[in-house]
């Protein structure tokens, strides 16, 4: 094993491979920053280039670019309230609120440092126990997935500060939007009105860009207030205070990393779901939940670590069984085959130096994220110096280009405008938009897993409660859902 690691070191610390890692890191940082361009797209764009590379640099390019993209998605989220990738959407509002309070460097620094730590954690898990964990992940069935999704949705209602009623309405709106289209278990078109574009449903990216960014532009135009004054004229050292945060929030960091890795390993759920669930969990377990949504760094620590650890987790089933843990590894598996590194247990036995080289690339990618991310933040902060009168139209332009690029159709542009307007009306009336977005992220998964479970059990719902893991998840869900009722009853009893 030591010998194989020595060989792997030689494979990775080769000038060509290091150059590839550096270039793909810069590429990933750039893609992540642009709203509408996702980590998945960064991978797809890299595939034709990897045709011409040996196996290790080919995989290194993908690993590095995606890790960078998931982190740098935080930057426009914090500075402009436009999440660069869906994985940053969970805590965009929080980070933006911090920027407004003049704490942009803490928000971005926490995103950077804890992304790197989360990524390293996921890598460590992968290095030590990939085969065993992949074996366990395969035991998860639709019943368990269903409860995981419900757990995620239950958490959504408690995200942010507004009333549970308004958050629930927003969530239901999101679930309704998730119903549109043909991609449902019955394969039956719903709410499509005979329109071919609508059969594809509402894609998440245009909706997200519309609800966060376009609504913000509308609000600026209506109120004409300069919300980002003085307080954010400069961004200080992003690493300042990180040690203090690390000491203050060790548990959120560990929880986020563990949860992120677990969600990443599950096929079909990736970094975005990890971020949402761990943000909700951070609030649930926080000593100061009332501060969430007002610019409080705790949720960013936990969710920032979670989405990067999910990236590494997703590679576990991909390497061991060729089953993608998320859409990024789905593409990466194709590249592995192409390079003769066929996924499967034999990968670990026949040519272990290759797989160890991939592990080392993960470590390296998360380490160089610190200096490169610092540089990107330095450059990006200039955005805040721009006059809002120039900045806002430019953002709108970026939104339009990004939403067009996601599926190369003007339909995406129409979507951002519709959802921008909708979000503006919702927020002016005190409805949070984050639950609506989560509804779209998880709505389809929930329906699919429910229908599949019911078909498998011949319509018998008791299996949702009798399988051991499913029962555990079900109990947690009910506790979260009924917690306010218990609290209310307790107060009643005491006053009575």
């Amino acid at each position, binding site marked *: 094993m030591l010998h194989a690691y020595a060989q792997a070191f030689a494979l990775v610390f080769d000038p060509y491979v290091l150059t590839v890692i550096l270039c793909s890191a810069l590429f990933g940082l750039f893609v992540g920053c642009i709203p509408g361009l996702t980590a998945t797209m960064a991978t797809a764009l890299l595939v034709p280039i990897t045709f011409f590379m040996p196996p290790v640099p080919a995989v290194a390019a993908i690993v590095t670019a995606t890790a960078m993209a998931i982190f740098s998605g935080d930057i426009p989220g914090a500075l402009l309230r436009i999440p660069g990738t869906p994985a940053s959407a969970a805590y965009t509002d929080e980070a933006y609120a911090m920027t407004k309070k003049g704490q942009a460097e803490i928000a971005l620094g926490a995103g950077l440092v804890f992304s790197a730590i989360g990524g390293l954690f996921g890598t460590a898990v992968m290095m030590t126990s990939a085969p065993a964990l992949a074996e366990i992940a395969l035991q998860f069935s639709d019943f368990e997935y269903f409860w995981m999704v419900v757990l995620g949705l239950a958490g959504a209602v408690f995200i942010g500060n507004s009333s549970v009623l308004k958050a629930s309405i927003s969530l239901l709106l999101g679930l309704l939007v998730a119903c549109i*289209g043909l991609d449902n*278990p019955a394969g039956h078109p719903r709410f499509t009105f005979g329109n071919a574009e609508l059969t594809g449903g509402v894609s998440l990216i245009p909706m997200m860009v519309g609800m966060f960014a376009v609504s913000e532009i509308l609000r600026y135009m209506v109120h004409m207030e300069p919300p980002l004054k003085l307080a954010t004229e400069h961004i200080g050292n992003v690493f300042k205070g990180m040690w203090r945060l690390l000491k203050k929030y060790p548990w959120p960091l560990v929880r986020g990393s563990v949860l992120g890795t677990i969600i990443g390993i599950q096929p079909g759920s990736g970094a975005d779901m990890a971020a949402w669930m761990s943000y909700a969990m951070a609030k649930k377990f926080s000593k100061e939940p009332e501060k969430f949504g007002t610019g409080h760094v705790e949720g960013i620590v936990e969710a920032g670590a979670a989405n990067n650890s999910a990236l590494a987790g997703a590679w576990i089933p991909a390497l061991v069984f060729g*089953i993608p843990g998320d859409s990024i590894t789905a593409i990466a598996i194709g590249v592995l085959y192409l390079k003769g590194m066929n996924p*499967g247990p034999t990968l670990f036995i026949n040519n272990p130096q290759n797989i160890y080289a991939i592990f080392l690339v993960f470590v390296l990618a998360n380490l160089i994220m610190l200096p490169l991310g610092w540089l990107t933040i330095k450059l990006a902060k200039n955005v805040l110096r721009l006059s809002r009168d120039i900045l806002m139209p430019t953002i709108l332009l970026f939104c339009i280009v990004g939403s067009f690029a996601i599926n190369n159709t003007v339909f995406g542009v129409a979507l951002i405008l519709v959802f921008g307007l909708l979000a503006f009306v919702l927020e002016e009336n005190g409805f949070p938009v984050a639950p609506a977005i989560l509804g779209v992220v998880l709505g389809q998964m929930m329906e699919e897993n429910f229908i599949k479970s019911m078909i*498998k059990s011949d319509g018998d719902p008791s299996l949702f409660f009798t399988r051991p893991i499913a029962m555990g998840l079900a109990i947690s869900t009910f506790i979260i859902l009924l917690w306010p009722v218990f609290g209310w009853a307790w107060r009643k009893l005491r006053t009575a």
Partner: protein
Amino acid sequence: MKTIFKVAALIAALVAGSAQAQYPNRPVQLIVPWGAGGGTDATARIIGALLEKELKQPFNVVNRTGGSGVVGHDAIARAPADGYTLGLITVEIAMMHHVGLTALKPTDYTPIGLMNADPSGINVRTDAPYKSVKDLLTAIKANPGKFKASGTGQGGIWHLAIAGLLKDQGIDPGALPWVPSQGAAPGLQDLVSGGVEVVPCSIPEARAMIDAGKVRPLAIMDANPPALYPKLPTLKAELGTDWQIAAWRVIAAPKGIPADVQKTLGAALKKVYDSSEYKEFMAKQGYGTVWADSDGAAKFMAAADANLGAALKAVGLAK
């Protein structure tokens, strides 16, 4: 003044002449109706890269996903018929209109060439007691509704593959309820976790699980065993039936592109198909290669359309 006009006319004539003489003189868009990372996407990207080498213009692969392929197929059919928008259309185009999901049919395109076909396999868990496809069918017949199958969406190609086989063998297709999934990978995962008992899907899709010793293929719905597993029996050998089904991919243009453009594309595509790069790429991934030129592909699709339509009706999936 006159000279200016003359020069202008000359330039115009040159530009027009060159535009006609050498298609393509600007980048070409290659639409893929499925997501980045899937088999169709990978196939389109290698074809695009090789066409670029042949015709010296960029071939940009564009994913138009959603609606189980409806959105992308629709975009290809509606694009301007000038040869600057092509698409990789898939077997679904010969299925969806029978089910009433779209009005589009294979005849709404100008096929340029058939590039690939992947026949369906029948996979079970490695520890399953059935030794052959015959054992499996006997078990299904004896316990209708007890076993479940998965591997694609409701009414998708692999669903039809197994339902058609059951019908062909005189077993009610309802005896093996279908669990819709987002594709073969989640279906196979479900198979291993014990959620379903059968996954019919193509060999490259199941390859990693077969090599990992988690999944065992029983038979292939094709005339010959696949190159990856030459010992895998055909249905003909096991059951004596001619039931065959495959997912295929055709490079196509919108209907009515100029004849000379079609000719240029057809010749270039044939070269791509014959290239060692294409063969090697497909073989490494485990994808099957089949070639038919424009006329051949049109005939092939018409036959597939009739067969799939009849099968969809027989198993009760057609509207």
